[in-house]
């Protein structure tokens, strides 16, 4: 009797406190919602509206023009090739990443000498800032001094006078971009898949062993189906990153030989920010007034209190 009375009082106390939380919940959530709406939601709506308007960089007014920009974009051959490139890069990279990622995850699951070191080294491509990894690859694919070509020549896959232009020929450039995409995404997907692999209960694997399943049977009939939700997560992330990535193409090829390796986002950057005018597949914006003001500033040597003029004494300041 007494215990139930105490228990009721206690639950009543908790419930009383919990009722006051009804206001607290949304209140704690509000700043996050405000930030997201203000800096993601509203710009998204602005992007949609700009794509339906005739704003250009430098114009102060927006006029509604319907779908003109979209028709103009579809007419542009570079836009169409950028669209195809985006799909090709994403699709091929994702397939390679999933297949290789699975192999890598299976490898990392086993115990062997040097596994800890390998885990650290495998992470490097994902951890390094994307732009800096791309710069490293740009040097590796250099037109004359490419170490990739040198190594291929050294093992006689290439002849002594072969210098394949990895960044200068359209098909090779696409292969190069896909390679760097895969290089960068592989650690992430391997780690995610490894997490999935380690969560598969041991009883299932033991039962498979008892039933005499071979390595490949176990792989295709048990592991992959059970990993499907994890694979979906990895594919979702990877696809979105690759589909919308701008920095890799911008740094590696700048759009490639004759604009042939542009993807949608790098083409949008080229037209919208660098060129600052003209028809585009993405809305232009008033970014250029700000950039034009600073472009004039760039022509004068950069002065800093410490080093004086840092660049004009070395080479042409642009």
């Amino acid at each position, binding site marked *: 009797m007494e215990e139930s009375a105490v228990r009721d009082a206690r639950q009543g106390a908790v419930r009383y406190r919990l009722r006051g939380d009804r206001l607290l919940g949304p209140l704690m959530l509000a*700043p996050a919602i405000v930030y997201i709406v203000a800096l*993601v939601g509203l710009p*998204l709506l602005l992007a949609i509206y700009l794509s339906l308007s005739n704003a250009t960089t430098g114009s102060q007014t927006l006029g509604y023009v319907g779908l003109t920009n979209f028709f103009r974009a579809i007419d542009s051959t570079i836009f169409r090739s950028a669209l195809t490139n985006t799909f090709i890069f994403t699709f091929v990279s994702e397939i390679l990443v999933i297949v290789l990622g699975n192999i890598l995850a299976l490898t990392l699951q086993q115990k062997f000498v040097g596994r800890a070191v390998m885990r650290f080294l495998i992470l490097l491509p994902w*951890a390094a800032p994307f*732009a800096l990894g*791309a710069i490293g690859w740009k040097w590796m694919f250099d037109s004359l001094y490419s170490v990739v070509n040198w190594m291929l020549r050294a093992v006689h896959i290439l002849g002594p006078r072969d210098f394949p232009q990895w960044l200068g020929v359209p098909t090779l450039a696409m292969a190069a971009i896909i390679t760097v995409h895969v290089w960068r995404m592989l650690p992430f997907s391997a780690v995610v898949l490894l997490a999935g692999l380690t969560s598969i209960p041991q009883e299932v694997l033991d039962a498979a062993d008892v039933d005499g399943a071979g390595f490949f049977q176990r792989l295709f009939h048990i592991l992959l189906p059970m990993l499907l939700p994890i694979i979906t997560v990895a594919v979702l992330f990877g696809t979105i990153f690759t589909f919308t990535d701008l920095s890799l193409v911008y740094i590696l090829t700048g759009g490639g030989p004759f604009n042939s390796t542009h993807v949608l986002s790098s083409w949008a950057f080229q037209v919208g920010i660098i060129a600052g005018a003209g028809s585009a597949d993405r809305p232009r914006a008033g970014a250029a007034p700000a950039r034009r003001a600073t472009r004039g500033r760039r022509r004068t040597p950069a002065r800093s209190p410490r080093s004086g003029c840092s660049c004009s004494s070395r080479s042409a300041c642009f």
Partner: protein
Amino acid sequence: MSLELRRTLGRGALYLSAVCFTFFAAFPFVWMGITTFKRILDLYNIHNNPFLFNLPPTLENLQLLFQGTMFTRWVANTAFVGALVVIITMLIAVPAGYSLARLARGWGQQLGIAIFLTYLVPPSLLFIPLSRVVSGVGLQDSFWSLVLVYPSFTIPFCTWLLMGFFKSIPGELEEAAMVDGCNRLGALRRIVLPISAAGLLTVVIFAFTLSIQEFVYALTFISPSAQKTVSVGVPTDLIRGDVYYWGSLMAGALIASIPVAALYSLFLDRFVSGLTAGAFK
């Protein structure tokens, strides 16, 4: 095929796979390291073996990096922006994650997923309207624009991660505290935060590395060298017109990558488990 043979072949395939993947992943960084210390004449010679130091190694690339560019300034900017973004993110995401985990019956899960999905809205779509917003607020050409904009992608992700972490803490602990006289915020402060310290640290590291790696916004919003972050400064300022200062480029890339990689490898297990927790529901 005998068991012994099969086992040896399997072991061999394992080591082969390990070596190949490690080589593929790490070789660019090894190459960056070698290039850093090579003289330019040594680099620009087709007939040289690129792995040998045909001319003696030099520190002149590092000298150019540290004295001829604003590299140290960029590193300072990057660290400063990263720290501020982490503080802002934690101040906003921790209450939001807690609220979604505990205080939102029913609609909490859906709202959490919706918030996470805003992380997937790509910077390459938002950079144009955001550059208009940034110039409207007068923050163009300053790294403060990054402090304003970066939380727009760190907050959604960190809120979702934190929601997962807080859900994994049993609710009875807080209820016991509240019976003993705490209100909800007190329970949060005294009970939940100390327990989830490791998870909080993981989210801090993740937000920090996300803001260090970011490229598109920094490239779009900032042009003066003194305001750049390292991720933008190295590829843009070390390429002057037609001339690529490869040695210094590689040095800058390597120096900026290693600390991030070290941080990641320490905390990897935790945020992968946070990331994949949603997949197993």
